[in-house]
């Protein structure tokens, strides 16, 4: 992945995350676009590219979230590392498996984020049951498209 393309992918990820979070949010349910993009980048480019992009996106999310600064950066970095290392053992090419990976990653990430909040802010950062249950579905539906975009970027 070249630097310029990677930077453009970084900006595009931020834009679509903002767009979907503000324009396509239904009752607080919105897809985790940046987590999905991190997984996609790690799946196609490997753990190095995925970690760099994930850390950058996470830092940006932390800067605007108002909660524990660094939690998203740490979470995305770990997610990218795991998917990047396990991509040889997983099928990341087919849309169903991509959706499954996304659907599994979202609740795990939510719990991780809550736990980090518990450690560093002394309270569990719980988003609520509705986002916890429906965000994975929404994110899983979006997964094939984001993985496809990451794949196209990796090919360039």
């Amino acid at each position, binding site marked *: 992945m070249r630097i310029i393309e990677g930077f453009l992918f970084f900006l595009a990820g931020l834009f679509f995350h903002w767009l979907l979070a503000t324009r396509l949010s239904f009752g607080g349910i919105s897809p985790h676009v940046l987590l999905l993009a991190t997984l996609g980048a790690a799946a196609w480019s490997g753990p*190095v590219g995925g*970690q760099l992009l994930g850390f950058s996106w996470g830092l940006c999310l932390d*800067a605007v979230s108002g909660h524990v*600064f660094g939690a998203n*950066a740490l979470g995305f*970095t770990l997610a990218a590392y795991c998917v990047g290392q396990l991509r040889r053992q997983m099928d990341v090419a087919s849309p169903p498996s991509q959706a499954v990976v996304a659907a599994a990653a979202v609740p795990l990430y939510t719990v991780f984020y809550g736990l980090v909040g518990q450690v*560093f802010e002394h309270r569990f950062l719980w988003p609520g049951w509705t986002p916890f249950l429906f965000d994975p579905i929404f994110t899983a539906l979006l997964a094939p498209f984001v993985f496809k975009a990451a794949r196209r970027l990796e090919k360039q």
Partner: protein
Amino acid sequence: MNRDSRIANWLLLILAAAALTLLSLQATAKVAQLRAVVAYLLEPLPYHGDRLAARLEAVPAGAARIIAADVELVEARRRLQEAEVLKAELSAARVENERLAVALGMRPLAGRTVRWARVMERDPQNWYRSVLIDAGEEQGIDVNAPVLGLDGSTLAVVGRVTEVNPRTAKVLLLSDELSALAAYFPTQGWEGLVQGQGTTKLRMNYLPVDAKFAVGDEVHTSPTSASFPPGLMVGRVSRVFQRDPFLAFQAVELERAVAAGRLKEVMVLAPLTEPAVPTGASR
């Protein structure tokens, strides 16, 4: 462990350490400043993103407007074409209206019923001989009825009706070789016989040999004419023929007052119902 994995592991350690450092020191001024800087750098995103999203949302409405405008453009072009046709018709009607307005301003010929008719058809083979008009027996047109036309604002002789159909009639023009008309020079009083030659010119015979004529002299219908009211314009002298010593009269060539090619409407006079009074034809 290959090289990529080692890099990935080291990168994980570095980034995780950095994240944990930020998490641990988030209350410090340095981290707060870093957070503010990142937030500041991201500030244009919602602003420009919102504008971009607004533009994207406006795309369907804009496309609908473009399609509607295209439909209106096609309709406008069609109407413009119709308007061009209407304009041409209006122009023709305006010219016709001006001619008819001039005609309406004329005094009627005493004792005559006047009927206006349009020239329908002109046979190229008989261009200077006859025309067909859109009035016939049903409109009260009779054979031998005098037919007049407009020379500017003055009535002038065109010819006479030779055939009458129910709705049309044939007019033998004065320029036909078979046409003849008694006429005179109103300024001098000399009378002669105007005859057609099958061309644009007329010939006036039987004029006294000692009379003098000049180009431009007007010739009017004579009071002795059996068909035409007196005093109507026939034409103007365009040429004076040299005197023939073997003839007992002289002749002149006339330019017709009404050119056959310009005829659009003609006035057909009904048969005389009472003695005609010479009134003149000008306004």
